[in-house]
């Protein structure tokens, strides 16, 4: 009886392990390639970290460094050259500036909106809420061109504003927070009113602290989406490398005169991915709470 049970459990785990491998394999490849030399990558040899033989890298020499400077172990070269070739810290900083600005403004807009939609009685509330739901259905790419034209008319192409402004009103955020606020008891709000709080004070001092789990879930959706977004920055950042976000930065390693060199490219991707993974590990517990709370995505 017990043995049978173990076999049953074993099957489940075997299937899950296969699934996990399929999902993790690309990440394994990414890390592995960021450590190996170009030859090992192209011949698909060397296992996880390759032989790590000290060698001179021709692309590096072509770029203008001395042979001495270009002689080192592959893993060191890949990461060193990634940072030499592209201002990765600058890209990371841009990513932080853009995603944080977007998130903060989204919260500033979404919380009062969600509060009004969930707790205030006003004429046309149902209509406004149905418009919010309607906006959820519009794909971003559908309105990308008009948005671009409007930004261009305003002279904002190639600025931080172009990266941030179109995303400041998140209907998803409004919807998510509204659903959460519906569960907050009315009496709490009445109590705050009796204590002398105005409506804005209620939003920031009562609703915001009670909504932290939902807000964290939204933070992760928002930050991940905009940190990884390639489409929009590619459209509105046309020339100025100082404004590149991490995904645009990775593109620097593709093609060009020195052909594709995968080692440094993968090293830069690892660098770009790590902050998100670290953030996820830190917020993991809250994140799962938030997702089960909203039951979405």
């Amino acid at each position: 009886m017990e043995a049978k049970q173990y076999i049953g459990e074993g099957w489940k785990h075997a299937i899950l392990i296969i699934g996990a491998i399929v999902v993790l394999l690309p990440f394994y490849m990414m890390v592995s390639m960021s450590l190996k030399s170009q030859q090992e990558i192209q011949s698909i040899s060397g296992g996880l970290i390759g032989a790590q033989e000290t060698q001179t890298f021709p692309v590096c020499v072509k770029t203008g460094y001395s042979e001495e400077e270009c002689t080192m172990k592959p893993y060191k070269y890949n990461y060193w050259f990634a940072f030499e070739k592209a201002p990765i810290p600058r890209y990371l900083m841009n990513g932080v500036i853009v995603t944080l600005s977007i998130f903060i403004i989204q919260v500033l807009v979404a919380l009062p909106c969600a509060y009004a939609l969930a707790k205030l009685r006003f004429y046309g509330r149902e209509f406004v809420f149905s418009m919010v739901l309607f906006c959820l259905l519009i794909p971003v790419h559908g309105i990308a061109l008009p948005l671009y034209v409007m930004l261009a008319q305003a002279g904002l192409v190639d600025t931080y504003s172009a990266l941030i402004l179109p995303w400041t009103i998140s209907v998803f955020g409004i919807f998510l927070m509204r659903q959460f606020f519906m569960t907050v008891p009315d009496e709490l709000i009445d109590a705050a009113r009796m204590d002398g709080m105005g409506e804005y004070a209620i939003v920031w001092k009562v609703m915001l602290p009670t909504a932290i789990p939902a807000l964290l879930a939204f933070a992760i959706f928002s930050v991940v989406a905009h940190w990884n977004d390639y489409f929009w920055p590619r459209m509105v950042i046309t020339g100025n490398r100082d404004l590149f976000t991490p995904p645009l930065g990775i593109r620097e390693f593709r093609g060009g005169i020195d052909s594709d060199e995968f080692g440094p490219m993968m090293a830069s991707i690892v660098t770009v991915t790590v902050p998100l993974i670290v953030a996820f590990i830190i917020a993991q517990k809250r994140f799962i709470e938030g997702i089960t709370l909203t039951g979405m995505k």
Partner: protein
Amino acid sequence: MGTISLKNISKSFGSTQVLNNLNVDIQDGEFLTLVGPSGCGKSTLLRIIAGLEQQTSGDVLIDNKNVNKIRASERDLAMVFQSYALYPHLTVRRNLETPLRLRDYNAFERLPLIGNFSPNKKSKTESINQLVNKTSETLQISELLDRKPGQLSGGQRQRVALGRAMVREPVAFLMDEPLSNLDAALRVHMRSELSELHNSLKTTFVYVTHDQAEALTMSSRMAVMIDGNLLQLDTPQEVYDNPSSLSVAQFVGSPKINIFNGSSDSSGTVNFLNVNLKRKSSESNSDLHIGIRPEHLEITNNKDENTFSGTVAYRENLGSDIYFHVNIEDNSKKIIVRGLPQFTHQITNGSSVNIKRDSNKALLFNQTGMRIHFNNAMG
């Protein structure tokens, strides 16, 4: 001062009329209970006093000042809610401080960090601390000040909610069923505590409850509301002894008053079951409801023309009293009779009993439920 006057208050939600032209004068220092079955509009009335809800028509006067256009926060009233509604993310101390901070600090002083540079903030903070400490000592919650509401029991939360209302020393306290989330024993205990608190604060209390026992025990006057109408506003004893209508008589008192169908003849003599009342009704030749409370009925061994008989269907033992639910012939409803345990311990379910009534205790109501008085006080 803390007088509250409600003048011709009506409220409707869409086409549903919730409150029907109510007039109530609440005196300074009074403990007024709004009592009625759920859905009778008593909470709505309280919220209108508080300013959380706007009346459809009529005026609210606090200390003879019309407050129709004044926001809830500026009416200087404090409210205690059924669910306590404490701020879950703040400690008990901060919960108590919140109304004071909002009242005493100006907008600049409320700012984090830079607010501390205001020259007056320090003295204000000290007076706030003093008030919080004083209140928490009165309510015996001093040792809870650093906990969060989630770590408190129901009774403790109740005290904190009271404290948050008290610190501000408001004109009046509004309480919306504050005891109904507590267990039975604690509820009875908190009743006496609330009464004591009212005696020591001498502030106006407006208290909403559906529990007529709370209304009877605590209030100086009680207002009985049913279906958005104010049916009677009087002292608890008067409401109990002299209900103005059948609905009030049925709502107040536990167990419920017994209602018999009867009639009066041309001379005004009231007859029900096989019994004639000695007192004459002021309304002759009409069908009547006769109400007699369970404690005015008694189980007796003697059978005569003033008693009626029936069989015990259910014996409800409360320790100090035993209530007998008795089936009577010719009366569709069971009637309830109180008996003292020492005299009635041998009576069990199914026993046949004779029931005697105390004289001068019957209440008369006409077919529309209005109270009818007797012509004279005799018999």
